[in-house]
């Protein structure tokens, strides 16, 4: 299924680069805030996290991501664009699993809107994660 919000595997350097280039064209933006969520090599009960496997309810991700964007645009009048990319599948420790890219006329709204978008994603985006440990055991979160 087609989606603007999910990517298979880690969020690549290429996606980030393309977004920055795309946003640069908009000369009414004075600030971009980018949040990158990264998989940490946490140690849980003595076992180190090797990767996280993400799964998502794709149709609902699209619905909820659109709602989040609508909420942000209505709360932050200075915001020009919002991009959300979340991983599905395996993302190894040290790789990026979430990108939120907010452009606004001025820095305060860019920062605040990016922060709020990340919070709404945590609460509303139907994504699940399975931590995979070095010994290949796993734990749902």
């Amino acid at each position, binding site marked *: 299924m087609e989606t603007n919000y999910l990517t298979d595997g880690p969020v690549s350097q290429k996606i980030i680069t393309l977004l920055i280039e795309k946003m640069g064209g908009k000369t009414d933006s004075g600030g971009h805030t980018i949040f990158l969520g990264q998989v940490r090599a946490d140690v849980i009960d003595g076992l180190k996290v090797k990767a996280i496997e993400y799964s*998502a309810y794709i149709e609902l991700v699209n619905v909820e991501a659109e709602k989040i964007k609508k909420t942000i645009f209505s709360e932050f009048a200075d915001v020009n664009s919002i991009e959300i990319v979340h991983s599905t599948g395996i993302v190894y420790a040290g790789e990026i699993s979430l990108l939120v890219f907010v452009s606004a006329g001025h820095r305060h709204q860019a920062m605040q809107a990016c922060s709020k978008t990340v919070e709404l994603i945590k609460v509303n985006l139907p*994504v*699940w994660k399975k931590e995979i440990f070095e010994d290949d055991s796993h734990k749902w979160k």
Partner: protein
Amino acid sequence: MQVKVLFFGVLAEVSGTGIKYYHDVRSISDLKLRIQDDFPEIVHYNFRISLNSELTDKDIELKSEDVIALMPPFAGG
């Protein structure tokens, strides 16, 4: 009539399969009981329900082709 049930997150593992079809279910509460019969350990998990990509906590009557998802707490990011 037939409805499609999607199991997400840990429930995909509990159910053994991510998808299951149920026949002749009247309502969401009826469906929940049927799922519980098939997978008794599901009572140990919290989850929310969506009907056709819309979250709901109501007991709605089901019709053929409905898609119901069982979703544990979200854990994105």
